[in-house]
């Protein structure tokens, strides 16, 4: 019995030491919070990021014309999957929420194929809230024609601030 308890305690300790590596606190204004079934947080519940932190993730640039624009623009920002990996996301389902509480949902495997980015800049200029910032989820529909339908473009949520995983 004692042996069992010791074994259990040891397991817990090891698990805790791996899981509970606290994330560094953001220094600038927080522009993205990730909650839900994640392992790496600052306070045990939420992983918060400022722009500088997000800029450190693996990023991509999509040069395309969205259906809300008359011209082609370059959008740059971290891969959504990179951020989710970083926070140790376990869930399979994502809910992304904008500043005005508009939200969209999709399954995580959706990212595996398309690798969307959370653009924080357009043509090298940082996106303000008035310009659909601070983060705009951009799908690479210039590479994948099947993403051009309204079902997919409707997932390109702007003024993104919150991600929930379950």
């Amino acid at each position: 019995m004692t042996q069992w308890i010791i074994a259990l305690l040891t397991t817990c300790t090891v698990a805790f030491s791996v899981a509970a590596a606290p994330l560094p606190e953001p220094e600038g204004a927080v522009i993205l919070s990730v909650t839900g079934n994640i392992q790496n947080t600052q306070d045990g519940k939420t992983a918060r990021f400022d722009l500088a932190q997000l800029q450190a993730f693996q990023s991509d640039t999509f040069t395309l014309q969205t259906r809300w624009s008359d011209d082609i623009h370059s959008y740059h920002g971290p891969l959504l999957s990179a951020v989710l990996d970083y926070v140790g996301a376990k869930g399979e389902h994502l809910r992304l929420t904008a500043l005005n509480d508009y939200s969209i949902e999709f399954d995580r495997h959706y990212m595996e194929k398309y690798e969307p980015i959370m653009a924080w800049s357009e043509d090298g200029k940082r996106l303000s809230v008035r310009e659909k910032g601070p983060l705009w989820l951009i799908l690479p529909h210039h590479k994948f024609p099947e993403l051009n339908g309204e079902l997919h473009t409707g997932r390109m949520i702007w003024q993104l601030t919150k991600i929930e995983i379950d």
Partner: protein
Amino acid sequence: MAQRLTSIAIEYRQKLVLLISVMMIFFIIGAVSLYQLRQSITILDQNYGTSVFSMFQLKLELRRFYDSLSLYRSAPGPQHFDEVNKRYNLLWSRFPVLMEGEDGKRLRNVENAENTIAKAFETVKSLDDSIVNRLATEPEYSTRIQQILQPEIDALDGLALQNFYRTNAIINSNDSRVISLQQQLILLMSGIIFIGIMLLLMIIRESRLNRHQAEHDSLTGIPNRAYLKREITRYCEKKKPFALHLIDLNGFKDVNDTLGHHIGDTLLQSVSDRLAQNIDQLYGCLTCRLGGDEFAIIQPAIRSSNSLNIIADKIIQLFETQFTIDQHSCFIGASIGTVLYPEHGTDVGSLMTRADIAMYKAKEQAVNSRQMLFNFDMDVQINRRQKLHTDLREALEYKKLQLVYQPIVDLKNPRVAGLEALLRWNHEIYGAIPPLEIIEIAEKYSLANDLGKWVIAETCRQLQEWRSGGFKPLPVAINISPSMHQLDLAGIINKSLEQHNLPKGLIRIEVTEDTSMRILKETQDMLPGLSRHNISIALDDFGTGLSSLSHLQQLPIQTLKIDRSFISKIAADHTSSRLVKNIIGIGHDLGMKVVAEGIEDIIDVELLTAYQCDYGQGYLFSKPLAPQLIPDCCRQLEATSAELITYVI
């Protein structure tokens, strides 16, 4: 006939026009259906955009901004001011999507929308300064902002509704268009199904027609050979007795040859009409035309041999009345061969063959019309013929044929002038086969050439054998049959003689008048060619057949053989003796030698010698003998004939 062809042509053209029309309608309907489907798909594929959603989002943000202003006024503080700012920025961000991109494009179609939105955006943008600078210190200014915004709120509310209704109207009208397209499509599809059914009916009708045509004679319209065979098979399967009468017209060929094919065809139609009306309708039989002038009648339900005769007699009776075609009276007869199921055969093949045999038997005996019921003796004859055919081939191959030789005696000098080789075949089953039958079979089954070559080779071999036995070779006459004109006869004979080291001229040719005329018809040069090659030709059986003195003029012959029928009567019949005397005279005048065949009496020899006949042949001298008996016979003959002739002289 011509009328019939014209009507067929017209019918064919009508059918073609109908078929083309149906196919045209089919293709037109198909094309229209495809076009309509395409239209439906285009309509269904249309997206109505997100402008309605975006407009309502704008309205929402406008309302939220408006409310944040009210909240800030009632409870001023940095938190609510920040909220105003946030709401202001969000409101700002809603405008560009309505002015650019796809939503912008759609809204531009709505009357005045572009202006209304631009104006509202300008108004919102104009608030930027006052919010940052004035509102922070003057919460009451929010009322002013709300007043400024109010007209824009109203205008945008109107626009949002207008846009909503417009989009809705498009959706609804598209829906109703799709519905009407689908309804039209139902009609078109019904059309296609209808045309499909029509085509199917046409195909069924056409195939029925084809089948009818395949089983009916185009000239007379009555069933043809194919139909007859099917019917016979059907009757055989029913296993009930029936009779098959095979009819071949006698004298039809003459009508065709003298009055022309047109009359011939009309005659055939009359015959089939007469048979169909009098036999089919009255006795429940089935008349078919097998082709040419051959007809067949199936007589079902045979109750007694009497009923068989009734039909046969009736058929013969029908041909007793003349046929009148275009004012020509045609008298024709019928040879009828009848077989009975199951006595004479249980399948189409045997019944037809045996009916054919019986019909030919009837034809042999026919004066005008004649019916013969098949019996197995007829089959025996046919079987014998077939057996002899196969056996002749074998006999040739295994040398089962023999040649016998009959001496030809010089009537002026006591010597044997030559021999005539005669063919003998002792068949295992049928015994001695008459030479004429052998020749006939050989001719019929293309064995004549082989037979001829064998006779030549065998004669040469025999001559050589005699010579080595010390018997001086005598000229041997061989008979040739009509189809041997295909051979290089002179070449073969001389080559064979050469091979056996025999002098040219030892082989002579005997040819009947009929054969010689047939050969002349085929190859002009063959008989003269023989003479040139030192092969003497004798005209055999002269005076029988279709003898004509002109033959003597046309044919390059050296010898004339007077037929035995004259010789046998010369002693008793004055006419015969005169004829023979004169034939001999003519022969001599034409530079020919004359042989008298069939001498059986010493008195004949006396007369013939008196008429200056050159040679004689017959039982008086010797019957045809096996080769080994010839040398002795010849020696003996030379001795006795010296006596004979001396006696006669």
